[in-house]
């Protein structure tokens, strides 16, 4: 069984009066079990040269087989220009902006339709500039149903 561990450390010596030092770690399991996740996209790296909004992991199909199963998403903006950001959305709802050097780690249900707008919960990314932005990303999961080729 594969073992994947994700650890987080948040620290600050001066954000609050008492120094902040938060550490947590978890092992990634299949939904509701203690069986480790066994599929991944690997750590990918792309260079995006348009501000076009894209589906980072492909589009969720209707009635996806793995809806509600365990999927973990890592995205990092590798830009070194502090003004450049990547807008991350789920469906058509903005989650937030990843500025240069920022990263995120989130669970993903790959839900087909939970929103009244009838939008599938695709993970979408839009660079703020067309001059080139490097994005690193990975998904670790227990299954993702890809669209049939046409």
């Amino acid at each position, binding site marked *: 069984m*594969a073992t*994947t*561990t994700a*650890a*987080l*450390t*948040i620290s*600050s*010596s*001066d*954000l*609050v009066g008492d120094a*902040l030092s938060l550490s947590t770690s*978890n*092992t*990634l*399991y299949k*939904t*509701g*079990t*203690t069986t480790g*996740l066994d*599929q*991944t996209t*690997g750590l990918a790296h792309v260079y995006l040269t348009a501000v076009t909004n894209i589906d980072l992991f492909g589009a969720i199909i209707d009635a996806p087989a793995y809806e*509600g199963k*365990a*999927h973990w998403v*890592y995205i*990092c903006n590798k830009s070194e220009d*502090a*003004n450049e*950001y990547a*807008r*991350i959305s*789920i*469906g058509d*709802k*903005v*989650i*937030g*902006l*990843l*500025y240069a*050097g*920022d*990263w*995120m*780690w*989130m*669970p*993903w*249900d790959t*839900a087909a339709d*939970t*929103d*009244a707008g009838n*939008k599938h*919960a695709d993970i979408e990314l839009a660079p703020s500039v067309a001059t080139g932005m490097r994005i690193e990303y*990975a998904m670790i999961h227990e299954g993702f149903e890809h669209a049939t080729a046409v």
Partner: protein
Amino acid sequence: MATTATITLSSDIVSDTLKFSTSATLTKAGGATALTDAVGLSRKTVAGGHAQYTLFDGDAYGDGSHKVYLKNTSTNNTEYFIVEINSEQMGRLYAGDWAFFPWEANADTNDIKIDPSANDMTLEYMLFYE
């Protein structure tokens, strides 16, 4: 003033060990100015299972480079929180799972809500905002 967040991920899913570590200094949008405001490390116990609770109200925060930390403190591996943003289902945090992501409160409706799968589940959370 500086706050840093570091993720370290290691896995033997593939033949060549997948392992990386990335650190980010938490700054305000569009610059190198550090985030200076935070909702301190908090805990919320939701008494009723499947009783949705608004954790962060989009109406209370403006646009910005906010960062959210969430952790399900349950030790029962069947218990989870569904995390929603602006009514869109993001994902599930099972026992011990954590998440860290940017949040742009760009609309009054861009709330972050949690929905526990059982009674008396406790979520640990923190918000860094500008």
